[in-house]
């Protein structure tokens, strides 16, 4: 089994999830509570990676971070490196690609929090930020966990975006799914079997965990 690729994928997925939680929670808060009429546009933008072919997203990301783009030029000036075909570039693409997987469950959980609880907190003199931390987040933990798990699993399994932005460099951008593709191309079916089975079992475990979380403990049928 290609442990190097598995380790790389795990690192990528963990970093992506961490960044998505930091970015996604404020955006989910805005989506859940903003009175703006045009927020449906932002909702559509957030959901775009769900329907867009990964190659399209990858292509645009590649153009956007290339050395001749402003983003790429700024990055080169700051770090001296390049974003395409690097772990950092891959990370950026993964964050964009998994955005809806964090934001949507978290926004749904935020919206389900009784608005009166927030208003009570404000009237008690507690700021909006502190109310977010002390009321909204604790009451949305299940949704946040779901978002984190889904983002992790989704990043673990991505292929098209990685291929477009990261290429196939061992130890830097060769993730598990790319590794499987390589093995099949090389007619190395035994290794492909092993790695695929590994990914399959991880994915199943993660999804089972997510559904268990959403089902409130272990009751199978709503008793009350």
């Amino acid at each position, binding site marked *: 089994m290609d442990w190097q690729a598995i380790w790389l994928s795990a690192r990528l997925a963990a970093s992506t999830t961490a960044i998505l939680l930091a970015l996604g929670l404020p955006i989910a808060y805005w989506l859940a509570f903003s009175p703006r009429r045009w927020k449906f546009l932002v909702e559509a933008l957030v959901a775009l990676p769900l329907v867009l072919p990964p190659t399209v997203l990858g292509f645009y990301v590649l153009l956007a971070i290339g050395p001749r783009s402003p983003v790429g030029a700024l990055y080169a000036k700051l770090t001296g490196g390049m974003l395409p075909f690097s772990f950092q570039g891959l990370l950026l693409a993964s964050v964009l690609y998994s955005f809806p997987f964090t934001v949507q469950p978290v926004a749904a959980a935020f919206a389900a929090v*009784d608005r*009166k*609880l927030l*208003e*009570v*907190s*404000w*009237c*008690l*003199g*507690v*700021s909006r930020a502190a109310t977010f931390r*002390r*009321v909204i987040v*604790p*009451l949305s933990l299940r949704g946040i966990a779901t978002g984190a798990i889904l983002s992790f699993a989704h990043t673990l399994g991505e292929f098209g975006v990685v291929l477009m932005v990261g290429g196939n460099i061992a130890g830097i951008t060769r993730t598990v799914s790319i590794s499987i593709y390589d093995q099949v191309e090389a007619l190395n079916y035994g290794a492909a079997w092993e790695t695929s089975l590994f990914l399959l079992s991880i994915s199943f475990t993660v999804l089972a965990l997510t559904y268990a979380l959403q089902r409130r403990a272990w009751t199978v049928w709503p008793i009350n």
Partner: protein
Amino acid sequence: MADQLIFQCRKRLSKAFEVNADLLIPLDRAPVTVLFGPSGAGKTTLLRMLAGLERPDVGSIAFREHAWFDAARAIHLPPQERRAGFLFQDYALFPHLTVAENVAYAAPRQTARELLARFGLSELAASKPRAISGGQQQRVALARALGAAPALLLLDEPLSALDAATRSRMRYELRRMLLAGGVPAIVVTHDRMEAVALGDWMAVMVDGRIRQAGPVEEVFRRPADLQVAESVGVENVLAAEIAGRESGLLVLRVSGQVGEARIQCVDSGETGLVFACIRAEDVAITRQMDRVSSARNRLAGRVRSVMAEGALARVDLDCGFPLVALVTAQSAGELALREGEIVSAVVKATSVHLAAHGAVPTPERRDLQ
């Protein structure tokens, strides 16, 4: 500026409905104000505008020396800076926190401990809100609000989430707690018995407007117009003392300008100062002063005025205290009532409804309006 709350705001809620309320509450004389009116009158919206949860279209809100809202000066303080504790109908306790954590949410630790003890919640401290009764939840919500040292308490139908038996018990209890809290309170209700039991001051809201405001008995006794009269429903609210109990009935002493009268009513365990509420249609009038009847109360009174209201006639009597009777126009004609005559007002003991009242009304409260 005096110790007042001045509210003058307009807010359009839909094409057909607008809240356009003008209200002045003398906080020093009105520890508890009842905002009374039928459902859909805009009471909750007014409360939310006071709290800063909703922004009026135009107008101003001034609490003591502070401008909370002023459309002309573009002032709109957020709820955090107004410190108006808001009690929702269902209390809105934080479900993920224990009773103690709810009370301590915005209170210093020492204050929270004292509040828990004062509201009899120490034993429930570790319980989650969903595990305690409605009455207990209300105490937690009130303790939590007081913990934040509020300038004003706003209560939206605080008793409506309780079952009927608890509700009537909690009326007196709630007033006691509000007075003990020492923070002026505005209580929204559409229940007239609740209004009488809880309030010192009363504002009647109909169709988005404040139609009348003043001391509670005053509003009941002299409704400003027909709509207020219809919505308050009880014409006679008499401050009374309990003089004694005999054969299962309670004897009340109602003091008037000249002498005093005794009224009997069903004993339901009240003590101290009460208000006796009698609807005008429950007061009958007779000229036979000494005939035996099943009705327990006969009060001699002088007719002050007779006014026809459609098929009915409203008779104002002076029994030492004002008493209003509503009889059919036909009876009024047959009795040939004339101003200045002495007649007998008859009230069944079961028609006298009592509302217990914690505090003795202060003299200046009675002088207002």
